[in-house]
C-alpha cells in the first residue's frame, strides 16, 4: 500500500484526465456535444431541485439505501476474516446500474434532450436505462445485435414492455461491437438533441466522472453503514471490474481512508495464461480506445483484442481511466478470478447465505473467499454485491449440468 497521502477530490482535471488516463480522444464533430454535457452536468448537479429529485428516486424508487449484510455462515466456512456484502443486488432492476441510469436519464431530461440512446450486449444496461427513461418520461432507443437479441429473450421483452425502441443491429458480427457503432452513429446524427448514455465509467470525458459520481452513493452509504454496524471501517473493500462502474461506486468513499485496502477483481476467464480473459488492467498495455486513454487489451498493431469472460458484463477490452490511475499510484490492488472460481463462489454464496449473485459480482465474492481464510477473524472484508443472478440462472444450470 502506498504510504503517501493522495489527494483524490479534484479528479479528473478540467480536461478529463486522471493522471495520464482519460481525456477526450474524439472527432472534432463530437467536441461541442461533450462540452455541452459537461457544462450542463456541472451546473445541474448543483441545483437543489435536481438533487432532491434524484435523492427521492434513490430512496422511494430504487429502494436505497441498500443494506450491508454480514455473511456469518460464509465467513465461518472460509475460517478467517468476516465477509460483508453491500447489497446492490436488492435495487430495483437488480443491480447497481440503475444508479447512473437514473442520473443520466434525469440529466438528459433537464438538458431538454429528446431521446436517450445506448447500446447493450446482454441487455442489462438496456433494461436499466429503459426503466429509468420510462420513469423520467424520455424517449429511449436501445441498439442491440441481432444475435444478442435472440440469446437474451427476457431482457429483450423487458425493454419492449418498458416502451424502449429496440433497434436490431444486423451488420458485422451482429453483437455488442456493432451495436456500439450503430448507436453511436445515430447519436452523431444529432448530438445537440440526443443524449448518449454510456454504461460504465468509460468513454470520453465527462462520462467517467459523471458515471462515477452517480455511482458514488454506493460507497457513501456503505461507509456510514459499516461504521454504524461494526464501529469501524472494513479492512478491505472488494469489487469486480469490467469497465469499473460498481468498483468506482464503492471505492470513491474509501479512497482517503489509507488503512482500508481496496481490491479490484478482474475476470481471468479461462485463465490469464490462455489469453482468453478480460483482465485489462492486469494484462493490458496503454492505449486509446472509444475516446479515452486506458489500459487496453490490444495486439502489437494497436487493434483491440477479442476479450472473454464467463460474465458478459465484464468482457470489455479497456477499463475506466480512474482505475488505471489508481493502479499506477498503487492505491487499489488489481487481482483476477477465473471462471471456475467464479462459479464456485456463485454456488457457495447461494447455498450458505441464500443469495444468488450475478456472475460479474461473484468474481469479487470469490476473491474475498480466497483471502479470508488467511486473515484473522477480527478482520473485515466488504464486497460490493453489484447484481443478482436472476439473469444467469439458465446459463449456470447449463454449465454446471444441474438437473
Amino acid at each position, binding site marked *: 500500500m502506498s504510504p503517501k497521502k493522495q489527494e483524490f477530490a479534484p479528479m479528473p482535471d478540467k480536461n478529463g484526465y486522471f493522471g495520464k488516463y482519460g481525456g477526450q480522444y*474524439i472527432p472534432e464533430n463530437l*467536441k461541442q*456535444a461533450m462540452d455541452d454535457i459537461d457544462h450542463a452536468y456541472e451546473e445541474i448537479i448543483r441545483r437543489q431541485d435536481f438533487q432532491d429529485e434524484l435523492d427521492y428516486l434513490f430512496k422511494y424508487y430504487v429502494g436505497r439505501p441498500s443494506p450491508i449484510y454480514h455473511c456469518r455462515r460464509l465467513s465461518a466456512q472460509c475460517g478467517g476474516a468476516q465477509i460483508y456484502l453491500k447489497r446492490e443486488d436488492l435495487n430495483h432492476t437488480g443491480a447497481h446500474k440503475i444508479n447512473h441510469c437514473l442520473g443520466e436519464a434525469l440529466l438528459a431530461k433537464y438538458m431538454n434532450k429528446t431521446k436517450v440512446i445506448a447500446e447493450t450486449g446482454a441487455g442489462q444496461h438496456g433494461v436499466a436505462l429503459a426503466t429509468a427513461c420510462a420513469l423520467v418520461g424520455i424517449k429511449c432507443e436501445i441498439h442491440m445485435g441481432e444475435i444478442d437479441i435472440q440469446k437474451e429473450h427476457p431482457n429483450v421483452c423487458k425493454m419492449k414492455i418498458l416502451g424502449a425502441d429496440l433497434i436490431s443491429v444486423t*451488420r458485422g458480427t451482429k453483437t455488442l461491437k456493432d451495436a456500439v457503432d450503430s448507436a*453511436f452513429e445515430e447519436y452523431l446524427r444529432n448530438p445537440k438533441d440526443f443524449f448518449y448514455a454510456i454504461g460504465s465509467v468509460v468513454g470520453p470525458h465527462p462520462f467517467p466522472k459523471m458515471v462515477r459520481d452517480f455511482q458514488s452513493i454506493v460507497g457513501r452509504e456503505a461507509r456510514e453503514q459499516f461504521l454504524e454496524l461494526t464501529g469501524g471501517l472494513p479492512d478491505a473493500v472488494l469489487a469486480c471490474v469490467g469497465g469499473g462502474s460498481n468498483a468506482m461506486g464503492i471505492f470513491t468513499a474509501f479512497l482517503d481512508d489509507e488503512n482500508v485496502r481496496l481490491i479490484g477483481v478482474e475476470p481471468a476467464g479461462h485463465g490469464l495464461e490462455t489469453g482468453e480473459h478480460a483482465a485489462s488492467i492486469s494484462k493490458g498495455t496503454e492505449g486509446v480506445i472509444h475516446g479515452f486513454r486506458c489500459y487496453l487489451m*490490444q495486439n502489437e498493431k494497436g487493434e483491440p483484442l477479442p476479450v472473454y469472460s464467463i460474465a458478459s458484463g465484464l468482457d470489455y477490452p479497456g477499463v475506466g481511466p480512474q482505475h488505471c490511475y489508481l493502479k499506477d499510484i498503487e492505491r487499489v490492488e488489481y487481482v483476477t478470478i477465473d471462471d471456475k472460481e467464479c462459479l464456485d463462489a456463485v454456488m457457495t454464496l447461494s447455498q450458505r447465505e441464500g443469495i444468488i449473485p450475478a456472475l460479474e459480482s461473484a468474481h469479487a465474492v470469490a476473491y474475498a473467499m480466497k483471502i479470508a481464510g488467511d486473515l484473522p477473524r477480527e478482520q473485515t472484508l466488504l464486497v460490493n454485491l453489484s447484481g443478482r443472478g436472476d439473469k444467469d440462472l439458465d446459463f449456470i444450470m447449463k454449465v454446471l449440468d444441474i438437473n
Partner: protein
Amino acid sequence: MNRFENIFAQCRRENRKALVAYVTAGNPNLPVSEKLIRAVLESGADILELGVPFSDPMADGPVIQKAGQIALRAGTTLPDIIAMAGRLRQHTDKPMVLFSYYNVMLAYGLEKLARDCVANGIDAWLTVDVPLEEREEIRPTAERAGIVLIPLVSPATPPERMKTIVAGAQGFVYYITVKGVTGARTELPADLSEHLDTLRRLSPVPVVAGFGIAPPEMAATTGQYADGVVVGSAIVRSMEQYADHDQAIAATAAFVHSLADALK
C-alpha cells in the same frame, strides 16, 4: 514550397478546385487497393487520403467501417500501408495524407512513424480522434520530422475555437460538411456556404470540405464555397459495384474523372 502549396497553386492556375480522394488502404486487399489508388490519382484526384483500417472507427459510417473490416481481415497493417506509400511516391508528386485513428499510430510508435512516413513520401497526418486539446501529444514529433498535421473543423465548432484550431495550420484544413458519420448524403446542409466563408476567412491555408459528398453535382456545389472537395465513401462504394477487381477499378476511375470534371 511543399507538395500541398504546389497542388493548390496549380489548381488556382487552372481555375479549378482540388479533388481530395479517400481510399481505405487494403480494401479488399493491399495489391488491389494499390492499383485503385494509382488509377484514382491518374484520373484527376489531386490529393490522396490513405485510410488506415481500424476496428473501432468512431467517425466513420457503415461503408468505410465495412471497408476497414475487410482490409483488416485481409491482414493489412500500418507497415504495409507505409511501404505502399513509398511505392506510390515513385509514380506521383501529389500530396499523400495518412488518415488514421490514434491507437494504431501509438502502437507503431510516433517517432518511428514520423520518420517512416517522411522516408516513404507521406506528407501529413489526419488523426481523426486527436482534437485540439490533445494535439500537443503529436505536434512536436510531427513538426520535427516535417509532417503536416491536418486539422478538422465541424459545423458545431464555434468561431473562437475555429480560430485556435486553424492558427498556424499547414497543408489544408478539413471542414466536415455534415453532422454525423462519414457516408454519402443526398443533399448538402443549407448553412454550408456561411460556415465555409467564416472558416476560409480565418484559415491561413486552403479549406477543403468533405463527409457526405457523392454525386459530381454535389461536389461542384460544394466546390463553389471551398478550395477543394473530399470524396470518400462514394469511392469505396463504387468499388463494390463489380465483383471483378479490374472492372471495379475502371468504373471507379471513371467516377473520379467525373468528380474532377465537375470541379473545373
